């Protein structure tokens, strides 16, 4: 890898840093790479770039690489990183913004994750509420692992925790309209 002079890079404020600052009030140039965010992150062991490294990529203007990372799909949005950052960098916020943009561009590095949230929202759109039984069944089916967690089905059902029929919001038109309008207002989902 070629050498990079960071202070010079930061001085010239790559586009990405400026964008984050102007649109979202997040100043990633403050990050001094102490690593505290990565140390506390519960999912870091599965990530391809540590949270700290995502911030570094952005500081260097290498947004494309960050957008294609697994990290932004694995982030659990638990906010440990931002809460602990000594420089008050909102890393959680950065993960969120990158994730939305990656999704909009079709960079999907974790298919199951994408399928799961897609089904969840479809259910909300149709029913107004989430039907957890339906969610699990549809997810297993569409993610091609029909027997995943199947052992839990019966015990959950017997304990009254899974219902065959969903609960509905009576006026579902209102929720459907929210979905429609949210998108026309510039939300980023398809």
């Amino acid at each position, binding site marked *: 890898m070629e050498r990079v002079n960071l202070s010079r890079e930061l001085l010239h404020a790559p586009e990405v840093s400026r964008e984050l600052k102007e649109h979202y009030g997040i100043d990633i140039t403050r990050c001094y790479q102490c690593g505290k965010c990565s140390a506390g992150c519960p999912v870091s062991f599965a990530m391809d770039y540590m949270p700290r490294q995502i911030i570094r990529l952005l500081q260097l203007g290498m947004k494309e690489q960050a957008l294609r990372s697994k990290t932004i799909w694995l982030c659990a949005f*638990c906010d440990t990183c931002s809460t602990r950052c000594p420089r008050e960098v909102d890393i959680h916020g950065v993960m969120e913004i990158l994730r939305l943009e990656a999704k909009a561009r079709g960079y999907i590095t974790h298919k199951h994750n994408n399928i799961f949230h897609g089904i969840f929202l479809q259910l909300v759109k149709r029913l107004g509420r989430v039907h957890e*039984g339906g969610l699990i069944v549809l997810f297993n089916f569409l993610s091609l692992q029909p027997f995943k967690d199947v052992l839990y089905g019966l015990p959950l059902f017997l304990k009254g925790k899974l219902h065959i029929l969903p609960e509905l919001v009576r006026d579902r038109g209102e929720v459907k309209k929210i979905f429609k309008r949210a998108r026309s207002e510039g939300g*980023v989902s398809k």
Partner: protein
Amino acid sequence: MKLAYYPGCSLSSTGIEFGMSAPVLAKALGLELWEIPEWNCCGSSSAHVTDHNLALALPARNLAIAEEAGLDVVVPCAACYARLKAAEAAVRSSRRTKEEIEKIIDRKYEAKITVRSLLDIIYTEIGPAKIREKVLRPLEGLRVAAYYGCLLVRPPKVAQFEDPENPVSMDRLLSAAGAEPVDWGYKTECCGGGHPTISPEFGLKILKPIYEEARYAGADCFVTACPMCFTNLDMRQKEVGKQHGTVYNLPVFYITELLGLALGFEARELGINRHLVNALPLLKHKGLLHPVKGGRE
């Protein structure tokens, strides 16, 4: 105290125990809950990671209905609470956001009312001293690991009522009810949210140290205020134990179940017979299942 009540979707299915015990306890503590009519799903993390406007508009519709009724909102589920609170904060902090959201939900919503978690209400408005007075069945000898997870305490600017690194509300309420909270390091560690379901291959790895630490600290059980945490902790113990050649057998309780039990309600009406890690043997062993004299009907 009268409050608008937002139960959220889990409280009628995987979180059924919370759905049963929260109203029972609330009533015993003198809280009047008015369930928001025709409430809709808050969008949970799925809206949050998919569509910014949707993530604010879905919770905002519920808040608008409560605002019309002029009531502050109380939310038992930590995950729903985080989403509703985020919508409140977004609308409060920007006029433009307020106008956009109102357009999307086609209702008026000015964030004049406040969203609070049920735990916050019980801790701040009712308080450990009041709980102590009302205890009919002290939880003596029950060693509890209070597990807060992320959303009750973070981000601190949103969650507000607790310390993000060392929260104490559940510990203090449980002490007041006669239990012994253990000192442990995983109080606010994240349970992995959807990961144990979506990607068990690494999701289960997030849970193991939480079981391990609670056991190491000598806890008999976990206590939580989040259906997501509850389900992850309760449902996956067998599986994770098997992977590591050990057996975890730590029942998980909602805070409302244990406080309800201490106040004299029966295990069944609180939903305590519905857990996957059977909680009844532990309670029986500790002598906490006997009917109480002058107990509640």
